[in-house]
């Protein structure tokens, strides 16, 4: 150490990268842990309010039902008959995922029931209906 400090002619002018590396690796680990590969529905719907709604951290397959009955999944509008095959395909990739149905306030309960049945046929029994926990 001492001999190094006494040698100003040696060109040791590079920045010390190790603190930056530590920081970057920590950031990387944070993002690896928090990422959960959620399949977003892709449309905005008005969720009904509910005080008793609980957070579903594992709900990562989101199906949206608009007020006119359109079903959106994975940023595409799909037919009711395609819901089952789509869910089955995604369910094979990650067997522990659950479904959250984001239904519009004004959508029909019958449409929600049909989508729930399709999801159950695809093999996922943990289905919940999205609600806004803040109330109205």
């Amino acid at each position, binding site marked *: 150490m001492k001999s*190094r400090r006494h040698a100003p002619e040696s*060109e040791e002018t590079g920045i010390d990268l190790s603190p930056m590396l530590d920081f970057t690796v920590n950031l990387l680990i944070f993002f690896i842990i928090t990422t959960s590969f959620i399949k977003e529905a892709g449309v905005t719907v008005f969720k*009904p309010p*509910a005080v008793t709604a609980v957070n579903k951290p594992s709900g990562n397959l989101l199906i949206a039902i608009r007020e006119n009955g359109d079903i959106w999944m994975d940023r595409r509008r799909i037919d009711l008959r395609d819901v089952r095959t789509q869910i089955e395909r995604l369910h094979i990739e990650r067997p522990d995922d659950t479904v959250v149905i984001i239904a519009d*306030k004004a*959508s029909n*309960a019958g449409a929600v029931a049909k989508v729930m049945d399709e999801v159950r046929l695809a093999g996922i029994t943990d289905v919940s209906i999205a609600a806004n926990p803040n109330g109205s």
Partner: protein
Amino acid sequence: MRKRRHNEPTESSTGIDLAPMLDFVTNLLIFFIITAVFVKESGLTVNRPTSFEQESKDDAKSIQIQILDNGEIWVDNRAVDARAVRANVERLSAVNPDAGVLILAQDKAPTGTLVEVVDQVHLGGIYNITFSTTQ
């Protein structure tokens, strides 16, 4: 350059070159930042009856709540307000403590009303809710 290479063997510069590892880690970091989606959904869980359960659930043990196409809520053969569902459920569950709730919604009943009823039943202390639709 030439001068440096001549000097080097005397210096204690034995560290591994970190630059390729740093490149790789930064790329990985950017990938995860891009793919990260911070969506946390909140929801209510309701059951759907299977074809076998449907008959057994229809007996007098369960509390039935009907939702009509126009959003009217019927409990115990009376039309009630959405905010009165909780009181009705509490009253009926006091009589029949281990009863579940069966929500019978007509096909075109609004989902907002359905969620409101589920919320009220939860507030009334019952979490065993089955949701069925009628034509």
